[in-house]
């Protein structure tokens, strides 16, 4: 094959390699810019990814819903419809397999397990990673655990999440209305 032909094929591959991350960026930017913002109560912990570095793993309070339907299977896709409660935090309104309410926002989650005893369906929200500077991630977690055990002074940790058409992008994590990044920065300075 001539060099020019190989070069053309190479350009197509190189274009695809650039297209994949660009498409990731555009999709997420669209949700951030035009999606609606919700607050999800959460607790942070600090794990590791071999390629993407340190992140805060988030355990959401919103992870179950009472239902008599016991046919849900582990790993199945579940649409979680939610509203804001009186304090302004997201709470589950309904769950379903197909789209149901056109006026409500929903997130696509994965079924974890169904508890037959109390008829609770447990699910996992997939925006559970918040990447942070490798030195700050551990500090944030340690601070959270220490203070929460002592006097529960941190009671307003929440994730700010942009939602559009079933997809969600984690925008920020806030501790006492302050971004976790600034919060840890201030803490290190003190």
């Amino acid at each position, binding site marked *: 094959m001539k*060099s*020019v032909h*190989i*070069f053309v*094929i*190479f*350009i197509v*591959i*190189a274009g*695809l*390699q*650039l297209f*994949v*991350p660009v498409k*990731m*960026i555009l999709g*997420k930017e669209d949700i*951030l810019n035009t999606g609606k913002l919700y607050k999800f109560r959460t607790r942070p912990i600090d794990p590791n*990814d*071999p*390629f*993407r*570095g*340190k*992140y805060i793993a988030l355990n959401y309070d919103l992870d179950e819903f009472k239902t008599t339907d016991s046919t849900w299977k*582990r*790993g199945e896709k579940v649409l979680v419809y939610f509203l804001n409660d009186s304090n302004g935090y997201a709470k589950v309104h309904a769950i379903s397999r197909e789209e149901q309410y056109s006026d409500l926002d929903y997130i696509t989650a994965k079924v974890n397990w169904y508890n037959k005893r109390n008829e609770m369906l447990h699910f996992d929200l*997939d*925006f*559970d*990673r*918040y*990447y*942070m*500077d*490798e030195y*700050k*991630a551990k500090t944030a977690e340690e601070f959270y655990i220490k203070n929460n055990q002592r006097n529960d002074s941190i009671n307003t940790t929440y994730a700010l999440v942009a939602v559009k058409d079933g997809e969600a*992008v*984690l925008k920020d994590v806030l501790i006492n209305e302050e971004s976790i*990044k600034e919060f840890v920065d201030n803490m290190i300075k003190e």
Partner: protein
Amino acid sequence: MKSILNDLSELVERNVITNNTADIIKQYYQQKQEHQPNRLLTVFGVLGSALVGLGIILILAHNWDNFSKGLKTMFAFLPLVIGQAIAGYSILKSKNQSWKESSGTFIFFAFGACMAIVSQIYNIPGDLGNYLLTWTLLGLPLIYVLNSNTIAVLSIVFATYYACVVGYSFGDGSNPPWWYLVLLIGTIPYYVKQFKADASGNISTVLNWLYAISLAIVLATFIDNNWPLVFMMYAMLFGIFYNLGKTKPYEALQLRRNSFSIIGSLGIVVLLMILTFNVVWKEIFREQILVLSQEWYISMLLFIIALLLLFNSIRHKKNNKFNLFQFAFLIFAFIFVIGGTLEGLGVVLSNILIVALGLFALKIGADSMRFSVLNFGLLIISTVIICRFFDTNMSFVLRGILFVLVGIGFFIANYLMLKRQKCLTNQS
């Protein structure tokens, strides 16, 4: 090449070859060298690119909180675009292989780094399996465009990594990594090309070993919930390996380059060794083996491939000598089916087959004067004897005597072969 040139002058001086022949030989080697890229340069280029690429991933994994989103995005794309520009230039200007290998390796890692940093910026949920799949899937075509050995190796390694992440994620509902097969098949045309060009070349050997090891690691990820059939699946895979290793192009290779023969024979022996224990059969009996399950279909498919390879090998070889290792998978299948119906029979038959394989390896080793194969046979037999110590009530004296006998056996067999070898060299 220098030593050849030195030898040439000596050969001309002693009138072994004429001046003319010496010139032709010199010319041949000079031309050959011009066409061959500098190997050392390629190795260092690839190593350098891999280290820089991995370094970039690690630096970016720090998660620079103080950089703006735009700056982070720019850093994500910069290494990738630079790598692509260099690779594009190497293709257009038909640069030598060192350029292509180095730039290809760099692109491979830069693409991984680019996706990683975009995931960081947008807190994209962490599915390591999907990330590795996209990475490998879009890195793999570079093998063909850049004719790159390194990317072929990286693609197989990363495909295996992906399969392990997806298939062995215990507790989190592991799935069979079907895409692994697509990735592996994607590398095969390149392997075939390299193998046809130079079957005993270094890259063919490296790929031989990688394929065999990778498949042996990944096969178990295709188990759903019918685990006893894992023995059947592996026995059939090793049957394929061994019979593939006995086909004409592979048999002509040195043993160390024929990974399929080595892993095939070693694998079936280890598998049978496990099945010589009664406790394993008891566990198998407890489970109900489902026919027409995923594991059953895979076993059948592998069985048919192994059988075709066996027929092919028998048909094409004249004066074909019987080789028990080639039939081991067939006998294994029989033992597994029979052993599954009658308790105790499986253990006895497994023991008989493994001892027979040991004796057969001894015979092959003695016939071909290969110490490695001879000792492999001795090792099989002695391991079976040692293993039986654990599930039989033999007296310590008897066990001790058996150990001594096995040890003496090792000495005698090796001594006799050494003597025979010396005798043969003296005769010739």
